[in-house]
């Protein structure tokens, strides 16, 4: 049954594909059927490419039949956040200003997915230009949390997490600038990892904040995330900020899953006041589980983290205001003429197009960033924020002297209702309070499910952080914790999510 296929993890699918128990076409079709069945309510996808995905699948099946040695994930379908350029497929970054834009080139990570033979199911929904924590700022409407369709699936990568959480794809690509992979993972009961900055190529990722952005894996298990991380990671000569070193040994770490003797640092400034009780309870239990497995807990304090949000909301808008200047209606994208102006100038057309094409949150941040960089204000705002960044890195460095990894709840709350925080930008920004420090310092972080909050029965996440380039520690500790939690729950947390009603019966594919 195709639901067998869609409930399987990527690792299981890969195994069944390699043993020729199922074909890549079957695997892909099963997911396309699932998309048709449930995405009317989840709204994870902005564009589905059935034709392209099946063509890749057919090609893989042929090659496998011919005895060719294929990548371990060949034939395993994947969804890609609509922030990565995909040649020939529309790429909107969740914005009206790029509606209908078809890139003439692939992002490096997309090239890698294609080289591995992974059928690309389509592009997923996101907050416009990745600015947001709920996907409500998408110009194409919000995505919905599969646990409760009236709630947000997180952001900015809510589409990718919702797709994976609702079994529309076993894997997805996300990007994380201040938590946009980790926070959606936490509120949807899935796994999401932000690699070390420079660990995954940014070439072809529509830039938000160049010094903070990273692409990473979105999945249902830690092993799956490690598999995907191994595909997309690595040096890219097209990205000057890319690290010239092999991908960290993430798969090995998952297989070992050993935390004996590891020092787990609990960060005083992350997880106290302002964090929902159910979130904290599940977090503390998870830490306890790690202790039971042989780890040691230490308390660390990173006082500069109290300024992290402020620094982030100065650095990000500043870089974004510059990165988004290219959308000016001259070479591509939406062109709108100003109303009531005869023979408008280029400047007027630019201004009218940008006003029409950008949403409120984007405009807010562009104006804020323009202000923070202006002469007279640079030192007080952008310049100071970059100094706070140094202090945050130093606090992390000091903490990592005492601990091998750091942990915290991923987010202060569980998924809130759609519409609840949309009119309060500051309240929205607070969702990222625990995830932001990692982006500022460039260190890697992962979120995995830590259980359901008692008060609302919604998923909570635990965040693990490691020193820069030591991504494997996330996966080792994550795998160990995941195994213990799954044992305690009697199965994956997602199994507890309500069944989504389907809008069409799944078709059975005959080989």
């Amino acid at each position: 049954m195709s639901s067998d296929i869609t409930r399987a993890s990527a690792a299981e699918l890969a195994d069944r594909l390699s043993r020729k128990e199922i074909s890549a076409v079957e695997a892909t079709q099963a997911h396309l059927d699932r998309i048709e069945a449930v995405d009317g309510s989840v709204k994870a996808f902005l564009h589905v490419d059935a034709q392209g995905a099946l063509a890749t699948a057919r090609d893989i099946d042929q090659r496998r039949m011919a005895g060719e040695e294929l990548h371990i994930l060949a034939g395993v379908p994947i969804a890609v956040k609509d922030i990565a350029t995909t040649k020939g497929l529309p790429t909107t970054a969740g914005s009206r200003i790029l509606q209908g834009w078809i890139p003439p080139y692939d992002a490096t990570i997309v090239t890698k997915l294609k080289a591995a033979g992974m059928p690309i199911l389509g592009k997923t929904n996101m907050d416009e230009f990745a600015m947001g924590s709920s996907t409500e700022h998408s110009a194409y409407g919000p995505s919905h949390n599969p646990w409760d369709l009236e709630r947000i699936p997180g952001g900015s990568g809510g589409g990718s997490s919702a797709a994976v959480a609702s079994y529309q794809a076993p894997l997805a690509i996300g990007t994380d600038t201040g938590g946009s992979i980790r926070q959606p993972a936490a509120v949807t009961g899935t796994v999401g990892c932000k690699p070390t900055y420079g660990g995954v190529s940014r070439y072809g990722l529509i830039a938000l904040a160049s010094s903070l952005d990273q692409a990473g894996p979105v999945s249902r298990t830690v092993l799956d995330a490690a598999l995907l991380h191994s595909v997309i990671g690595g040096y890219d000569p097209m990205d000057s900020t890319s690290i010239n070193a092999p991908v960290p040994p993430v798969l090995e770490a998952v297989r070992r899953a050993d935390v004996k003797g590891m020092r787990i640092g609990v960060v005083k400034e992350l997880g106290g006041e302002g964090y929902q009780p159910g979130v904290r309870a599940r977090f503390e239990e998870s830490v306890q589980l790690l202790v039971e497995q042989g780890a040691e807990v230490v308390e660390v304090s990173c006082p500069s983290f109290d300024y992290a949000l402020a620094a982030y909301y100065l650095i990000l808008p500043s870089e974004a205001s510059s990165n988004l200047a290219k959308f000016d209606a001259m070479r591509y994208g939406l062109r709108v003429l100003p109303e009531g102006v005869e023979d408008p100038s280029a400047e007027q057309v630019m201004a009218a197009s940008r006003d029409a094409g950008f949403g409120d949150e984007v405009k807010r941040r562009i104006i804020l960033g323009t202000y923070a960089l202006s002469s007279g204000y640079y030192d007080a705002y952008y310049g100071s924020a970059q100094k706070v960044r140094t202090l945050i890195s130093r606090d992390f460095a000091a903490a990592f002297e005492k601990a091998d990894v750091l942990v915290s709840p991923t987010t202060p709350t569980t998924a809130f209702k759609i519409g609840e925080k949309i009119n309060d930008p500051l309240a929205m920004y607070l969702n990222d309070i625990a995830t932001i420090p990692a982006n500022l310092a460039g260190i890697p972080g992962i979120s995995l499910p830590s259980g359901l909050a008692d008060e609302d029965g919604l998923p909570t996440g635990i965040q693990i952080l490691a020193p820069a380039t030591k991504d494997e520690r996330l996966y080792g500790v994550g795998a160990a914790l995941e195994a213990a939690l799954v044992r305690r729950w009697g199965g994956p947390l997602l199994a507890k999510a309500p069944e989504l009603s389907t809008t069409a019966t799944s078709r059975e594919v005959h080989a």
Partner: protein
Amino acid sequence: MSAISRDEVAHLAMLARIDLSNEELDKMSGELAIILESVARVSELATDDVPPTSHPLPLTNVTRPDVVRPSLTAAEVLVAAPASEQQRFSVPRILDED
């Protein structure tokens, strides 16, 4: 320092080439003031002896050799253009002399 006037917002909107409506200008100066107040505190922590970080990782000297690589074709780049003429991007009349 954290207050931001409607006029300032209008000036910033001009610098950023966004034609904000009057309603947008009003709304935004209020929202921005709140945000600015909360972020203004970074200057408290940022003392003279702390160097700024522009890159999270200490890479230097990343370059490429001076070797030609294939370009896109004119057709590929112009297909997305809002307007084109004579194999060039057609843009409305430019006011500002460079």
